[in-house]
């Protein structure tokens, strides 16, 4: 949508460059740690020990990446993470839509209280969940499978999704709902043919967040996934930290590899972010 904007009469050419420079400086500050990570990902261990982490590598060392990939069976970990994160993204988004539909549009009795109760899922510190979840997963023989992790994070992420979507759907135009009702649509059809298309951008944003958040989860997967064939990327990264020794260059190589999928995912879908987190001005 093109927006017309009345230019400021006191516009100064110089000022806009200053502001841009400021924003760029901020961006550089944000990126410095990433630069360090890339530098060390391609550094050999002896180079790192001799010169420290803040120098450019003396030679372009790719063995660290290779070692990491082979030692941790990275492709398998990548697949496990991708499998879990995508399913969580989809299921949690679905669950959020269903919940928010009832709460935001249906205005079920005490809806704001219910939203807050659902948010409890987000409020619980992880330590609270560890022991009980493990015991329950074991009881239903889901321990050491991705499903335990998927179920847990679907619930946790959908708490945020329900909250956001319910807030958004709370301002959904009644006119559209009534028109659909008068057309004879039942609630299910209203949901998928009237409501969902309008909030699709929001749902896509939720899926992005859910994917990235689940991808980076460490603690709960650490407890629920006990063998290397089921483990995810963050656990693979942690495996480089031994009892007393840490392999820094390989850790950086591994980190670089691990964030690539999340970054790519974000860059591809970030255009949807511009379409708005909240239901756009429905005119």
């Amino acid at each position, binding site marked *: 949508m093109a927006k017309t904007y009345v230019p400021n009469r006191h516009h100064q050419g110089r000022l806009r460059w200053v502001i841009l420079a400021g924003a760029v400086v901020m961006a550089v500050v944000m990126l410095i740690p990433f630069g360090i990570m890339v530098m060390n990902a391609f550094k050999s261990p002896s180079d790192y*020990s001799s010169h420290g982490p803040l120098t450019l590598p003396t030679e372009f060392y790719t063995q660290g990446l290779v070692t990491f990939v082979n030692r941790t069976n990275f492709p398998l970990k990548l697949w496990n993470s991708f499998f879990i994160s995508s399913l969580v993204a989809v299921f949690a988004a679905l669950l959020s839509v269903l919940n928010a539909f009832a709460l935001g549009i249906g205005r079920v009795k005490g809806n704001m209280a219910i939203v807050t109760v659902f948010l409890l899922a987000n409020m619980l510190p992880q330590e609270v969940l560890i022991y009980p979840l493990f015991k329950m997963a074991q009881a239903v023989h889901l321990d050491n499978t991705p499903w335990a992790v998927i179920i847990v994070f679907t619930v946790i992420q959908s708490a945020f999704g329900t909250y956001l979507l319910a807030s958004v759907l709370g301002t959904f135009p009644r006119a559209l709902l009534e028109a659909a009702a008068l057309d004879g649509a039942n609630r299910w059809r209203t949901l*998928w043919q009237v409501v969902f298309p309008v909030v699709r951008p929001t749902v896509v944003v939720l899926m992005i967040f859910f994917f990235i958040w689940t991808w980076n989860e460490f603690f709960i997967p650490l407890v629920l996934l006990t063998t290397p064939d089921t483990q995810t990327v963050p656990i693979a990264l942690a495996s480089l930290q031994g009892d007393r*020794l840490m392999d820094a260059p390989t850790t950086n190589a591994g980190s670089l590899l691990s964030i690539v999928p999340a970054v790519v995912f974000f860059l591809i879908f970030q255009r949807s972010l511009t379409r708005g987190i909240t239901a756009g001005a429905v005119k």
Partner: protein
Amino acid sequence: MAKTRLIKGIAAAGIALLLPLTACSSGGTGTSTAGTGAGTAATGTLTIWDYEGADSAMSKGWAKAIEIFKTEHPGVTVKSEKQTFEQIQKNAKIVLSGDSVPDVMEYNKGNATAGVLASEGLITSLNDVATKRGWDTKLKGALATTGKYTDKGLMGSGDWYGIPNYGEYVTVFYNKDMFAANGVAVPTTAAEFEAALAAFKAKGITPLAESGAEYPMGQLWYQLVLANANRDFVNGYQLFTSDVDFHGTEMTKATETLDSWVKKGYISKDAAALKAEDMGVSFINGKYPIMVSGSWWFGRLKTEIKFNWGSFLFPGNKLNTGSTGNLWVVPEKAKNKTLAYDFIDITLRPEVQNVIGANGGLPIAGDASTISDPQIKAFTADFSKIVADDGLSFYPDWPVAGYYDVLVSGFQSLVNQTKTPAQVLDFIAAPYAEGKKSIKG
């Protein structure tokens, strides 16, 4: 339109659902029989969990052990799974109470780790097996102490719960080139050691690489305590056989010495937040001439150091920080305990022990004369000397669960000079007393 998308989504999820069902059988451990059971030979699967680095001496030794195991048990599949240290350290308690447990597992030694597992009934008592297979004759003195635990989880007596394979000890690594360049000789007494530190400082070089955010400071302190202590003190501190006075001579002298070293600048005042990794790196790149730390550094130092270096035992000490390496434990819920015992037995055999020894892993039942590399030989000889003198005195954070963090915090105050030595001792005495009470009752 939205509906077809929904259907497609469900279909995709449905297909994805089928995938893990096929992979399901690989999750966890099971007793899948492999190959054709060859008559009398055992069949099944042996699952081993460990967390040593793939290039470490232990891993190489254990690879050999697996080879030998396979030839002696042709019908058995061996699944060796490398774990994350973090995972095992934190989750062992939870995971071992479940059903998908390994048959034999590497685990840390001490009251706070193996002791807790033993007291919780999570690992099997190995008493009968140890006697039957002669492990208790191979492991004597301090080597046996770390493997035995009471039912309250106190180390040193009670049943055998863990079997060690290798050893570790804290020593003084030094930069020969820097010593030569500054005219400092290798010290042989405690006084000479301090003089060496002073000599470096006089030339403007901070002598000791240290780390206040992790274990090194505590281990240095403990070395100084041991300089003034005897075996009774160690037993009292570690095994609760007698009361320990935190303001007695041993600990007071050690803390005051450490404090004076910080004041004199022998230890960098920036060390409070440095991690062990930082300490190691700064020794390797030649910034500090001396690093007091453990044998686990040996392999990495050998590969990465470019100058002439060596090690010497902490001068003047008969007792040394050190112990056996990590233990093999057999989870109570393991399904193939006999196979586990066979494997443990193999790791104690000379063939395997000598592989560990050859790579600098400090074997406990090996033959040092088979080591060809002179540096490794000397390094191993130092360890053997300590064992022969029964000088292994374990680590300062062992007696009480969670004591590691207490010591780190206490010695950070020392480095930052925010507490006096007496105050530091007060600070670390309280959690010790509390923890001791909860074990001894």
